[in-house]
């Protein structure tokens, strides 16, 4: 009955390893070997603290994050945040479809067939499907991600090298390095996951009595996410980076599973990636449409007919349509798009974090359950760090240009 007690933390943790996650971690491992593993440590701490805040907010207020933002910050701020969220989530959905395209490409199916078909399947699954069954199937297949752990170990990586890289990272300050760092943070702590998690907390009716168990569940979820991320990176570092393989498309990333799956590496990878991508491609636009409607007072929910909740369905459909459009663009660089959508996540995160920090420290909202010093420290430092990194990334072309001029 493990599945029956699956909490929001574990579900969220699994969904976190979607096409965006798998791709970003793979690219990180392939390009920089073990030199990016260190980013997982602060990401883990930040993820844990942030998800705990969502858990606490959900339990104490009984409301979703979208509701809370609307009720505490009014329409303008809400509109600003959600505009950002819609853009980020169109990107995220495009990433999922990129995953679909890439994985089906390994089986020789053209993206012009696989992507539209999946999009239609997604629509049907969302409107007519049984979510609980879909969730169970997905969670079952997400255990496939454990293959990465086996693969990583079988590739016999140098564990000493790994521990050195963790403690003494070689951080470069190139634009590419920065973007991957931001991508890792953005895919591990995606803004839409904060909304999703808090909704899940309310759906399951978690009260303050169950808080301890729910927190344990959050810890397990975060640990699972980061552990899988770690092993994806190690597997790719040990196989791809060692052999100088740069990931240009999904089939390159599949090679990381060779130690485990041998000749079938590509197929195994493709299958896992497809399931993860398809499921996330269903949840993401659905959740986004739901939160936006919730915040602005429109009717929402797949239990409503199209004419009862026009904005919801329109939003859901548009996100899918635009995402599909992006991916079907001839010669669209799928991997690059994927990394950059995760970077956008990281850029949006400080905005959402700021509003969360304000609310979770407000006695009016949280009563006596406001943040303690440690939580605030983590919250603020994550926010500031992200803003600084984003600034550096956006300014780096300007800086390089500036440097060139100066050195003349």
């Amino acid at each position, binding site marked *: 009955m493990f599945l029956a007690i699956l909490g929001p933390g574990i579900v969220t943790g699994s969904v976190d390893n979607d096409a965006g996650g798998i791709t970003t971690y793979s690219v990180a491992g392939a390009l920089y070997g073990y030199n990016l593993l260190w980013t997982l440590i602060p990401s883990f701490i930040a993820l844990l603290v942030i998800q705990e805040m969502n858990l606490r907010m959900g339990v104490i207020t009984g409301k979703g994050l979208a509701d809370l933002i609307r009720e505490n910050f009014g329409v303008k701020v809400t509109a600003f945040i959600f505009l950002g969220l819609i853009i980020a989530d169109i990107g995220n959905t495009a990433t999922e479809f990129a995953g679909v395209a890439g994985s089906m490409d390994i089986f020789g199916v053209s993206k012009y067939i696989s992507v539209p078909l999946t999009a239609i399947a997604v629509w049907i699954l969302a409107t007519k499907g049984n979510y609980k069954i879909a969730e169970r199937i997905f969670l079952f297949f997400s255990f496939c991600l454990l293959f990465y752990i086996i693969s990583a170990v079988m590739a016999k990586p140098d564990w000493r090298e790994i521990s050195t890289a963790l403690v003494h990272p070689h951080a470069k300050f190139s634009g590419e390095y920065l973007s991957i760092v931001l991508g890792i943070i953005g895919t591990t702590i995606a803004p839409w996951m904060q909304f999703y998690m808090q909704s899940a907390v309310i759906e399951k009716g978690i*009260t303050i009595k169950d808080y301890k168990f729910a927190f344990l569940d959050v810890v397990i979820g975060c640990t699972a996410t980061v552990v899988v991320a770690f092993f994806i990176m190690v597997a790719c570092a040990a196989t791809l980076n060692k052999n100088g393989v740069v990931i240009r498309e999904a089939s390159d990333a599949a090679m990381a599973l060779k130690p485990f799956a041998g000749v079938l590496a590509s197929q195994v990878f493709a299958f896992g990636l497809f399931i993860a991508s398809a499921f996330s491609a269903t949840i993401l636009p659905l959740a986004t449409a739901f939160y936006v409607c919730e915040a602005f007072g429109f009717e929402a929910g797949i239990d409503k007919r199209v004419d009862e909740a026009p904005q919801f369905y329109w939003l859901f459909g548009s996100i899918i349509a635009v995402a599909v459009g992006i991916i079907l663009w001839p010669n669209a660089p799928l991997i690059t798009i994927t990394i950059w959508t995760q970077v956008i996540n990281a850029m949006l995160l400080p905005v959402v974090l700021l509003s969360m920090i304000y609310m979770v420290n407000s006695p009016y909202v949280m009563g006596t359950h406001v943040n303690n010093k440690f939580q605030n420290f983590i919250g603020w430092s994550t926010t500031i760090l992200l803003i600084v990194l984003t600034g550096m990334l956006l300014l780096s072309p300007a800086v390089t240009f500036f440097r060139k001029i100066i050195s003349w």
Partner: protein
Amino acid sequence: MGEQFFVYLSELLGKPVLDRDGRSIGRFYDFSMALNNDIYPRAKGVIVCTAGFPRRYAEVALADVLRIDGKVDLKIPIAAVTFQDVKIVSEFALRRDVLDQQVVDVENKKVVRVNDVHILRVDNQYHIAHVDVGLRALVRRLDLEPVVDLLVKFFRPDADYLKAEELVSWKNSQVLTLGNQKNVLKLDVARAKIAKIPPVLLADIMRDLDIFEQVSVFRSLTFDVQLKVFADMAPDDKAGLVGLLEDRELVQIIANIPSDEAADFLMSIPRDRVQQLMRQMESQASKRLRTLLGFRRNSAGGLMATEFLSLGLNATVADAMNKLKASVDYPGSFNTIYIIDDQGRYAGTTTIRRFINEPFDRPIVNTCHPQKVFVRTDDGMEKVAVLIEQYKYSAIPVLDENDILVGSITVDDVMEELIAMAWGKYKDQI
């Protein structure tokens, strides 16, 4: 522009507040309202906040406000206004408690979000008149009204957007939380508003509320409405609600409803909670319930109510009439009276229709149905349904193996089964 009768709260937010000498002391932040049983509450003060960081707040009584017209002019000098570093704690404030919050639209029976507040201005008094839940209000809050209006006029001059204002009268709206206290429904006016909504729709509305608001609404209802609402709630919502209600409250509900419904109610509560509740009930009541719960769910024993009207073999029509008159508050079936002997064994069934026109001294047993129609406690639901359908009785007695009358089953208890049977017949006909 002269003083208009109506003003939107969004038009006032952030407007400058000037003291008697024309000096700016801050910006309009909120109206603090008087919390009483007024149908259209009125403002009792203006809450001002300073522009810079850190924000400081002050409350100015409405009597000290000269005029509000694009800006707020006060009658008093800045020295008379005391600012504090934390937000003003008032019982009821428009921006905090109404704007952007969810309210129950009692007239349309749904939960809506307030995008703006429509205020009536009369003799320098400010009353809440309506809440604006429309799309246009959202646009207004985003300061995009002129632009969007222009676009809409250009593309669709006859669009509903421009004409229909989605204003819900304050009379028909009910805020559910005030200042983080979810107990505003203590007010009589508030209770009356919620009570207007039919229970079935209330259950629907509750689904859109958060768990604390659900409890708040639930507590404001009368027992019979609580029961109906609870029956119509989704299982997950039920679990959440029961989890937050106190034992005392649940026991009270159980004690005031017919036993068969009480048994149904208990069956949807987690078992350990049920034990807890039973321990707190009077032993008679809990014993009866335990008996009911002990029967198989879909048997006559599981469906029956243990309350019924009964008379002895020697009773007359007059006794029956008196019994009915004395039982007006009786929660169970009112139409049927059972006749039992001095050992409690079933002797016959009579109904109002059968004895209402009989002379008062007629023995009641002579008015009973000629046939003794009954079921045993372990008979299945289908048998009950067949009997009811066959004889068209509104209630059937339930006997144990010693012929003792232990309960009564009414039509609604087997409604589902009856409908299934009728549907089967109907399908065969077409």
